[in-house]
């Protein structure tokens, strides 16, 4: 059975439907998130299960993985990020176009996990802003789907002006990310 997305709140009459632009765009964005899988270890394997037929992330409009950052909306970081790989991850984030969201899947991406050691980045939020953290070592596909659904909530309810705000620019500047 095909389940359609419900229309946002609005005023409906014969031959017209009125709602706010925010809600229409939010609905469209939330149901067509293109993820960029940045999979470095076992959490990436769980993600493969998440994309597979049993769990099927495509149900949420995210079946189109983008291996180019330029067409991606959602950066999914799954696995240990070594300090040497940090600049690579940051460049991938930089290359993504706004609006963009980041999800840190698993203990390593969120906090370094068990790898409290000189060579491992202690959480990707040291170099890029993160919207949703998924705990687990590794998390089950259900948890990854929950994380993606949280990102959908963020996308659906985001103010269209948020990414032009001073607050957002300040947040990016705190990560030494250039803003236009």
């Amino acid at each position, binding site marked *: 059975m095909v389940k359609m997305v419900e229309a946002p709140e609005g005023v409906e009459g014969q031959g017209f439907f009125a709602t706010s632009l925010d809600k229409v765009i939010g609905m469209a964005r939330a149901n067509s998130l293109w993820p960029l899988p940045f999979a470095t270890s076992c959490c990436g394997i769980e993600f493969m299960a998440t994309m597979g037929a049993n769990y099927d992330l495509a149900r949420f409009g995210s079946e189109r993985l983008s291996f180019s950052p330029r067409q991606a909306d959602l950066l999914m970081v799954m696995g240990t990020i070594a300090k040497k790989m940090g600049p690579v991850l940051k460049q991938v984030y930089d290359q993504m176009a706004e609006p963009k969201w980041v999800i840190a899947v698993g203990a390593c991406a969120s906090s370094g996990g068990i790898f409290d050691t*000189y060579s491992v980045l202690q959480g990707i939020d040291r170099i890029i802003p993160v919207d949703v953290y998924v705990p687990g070592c590794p998390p089950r596909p259900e948890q990854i789907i929950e994380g993606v659904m949280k990102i959908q909530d963020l996308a659906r309810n985001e103010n269209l002006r948020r990414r032009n705000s001073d607050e957002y620019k300040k947040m990016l500047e705190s990560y030494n990310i250039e803003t236009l």
Partner: protein
Amino acid sequence: MSMAELNNENVLKALTDTFGDAILHSEMQFGMLNVEIPADRNLDIIGWLKSNESLKMEFLTDLCAVHYPEQKGRELAVVYHLHSWTKNYRMRIKCFISAQKPEIASLTGLYNAANWMERETFDFYGVQFSGHPDLRRILNMDEMDYHPLLKQYALEDETRDDKDDSFFGR
């Protein structure tokens, strides 16, 4: 010297017959011959082991270092694992150098395999391999300003401030 089959006894005898006092120490560990030689003799002794017709130690299995901070003046051991494919024999060579002047000749002229392994040993222990064509870090990030496996440095990431040591028994 001709040996039908190599074993720890006849290899050690061949080494002491040829190099005498330069064989500083020898022992068997897990059935494998360990020989300590002076650091400034590594090239000619290992070169001889490689080129000698009855030994033919033509494969450098591994090259690494060990840090013994309590051994003053000989804190760093550079360890070579040699393997003779044709004679089916393995052995270990150790050279000790001081942490103040961690220098030893590079084996890149003898074995191409030494190139990356010496870079790794430099990366983690700061051993300077003189004569190496491209001695720079290989595994750690280029910006790192110390050699992390020297024991004076903590294993843990030192930039973390959210860990209460009392929860970790430290």
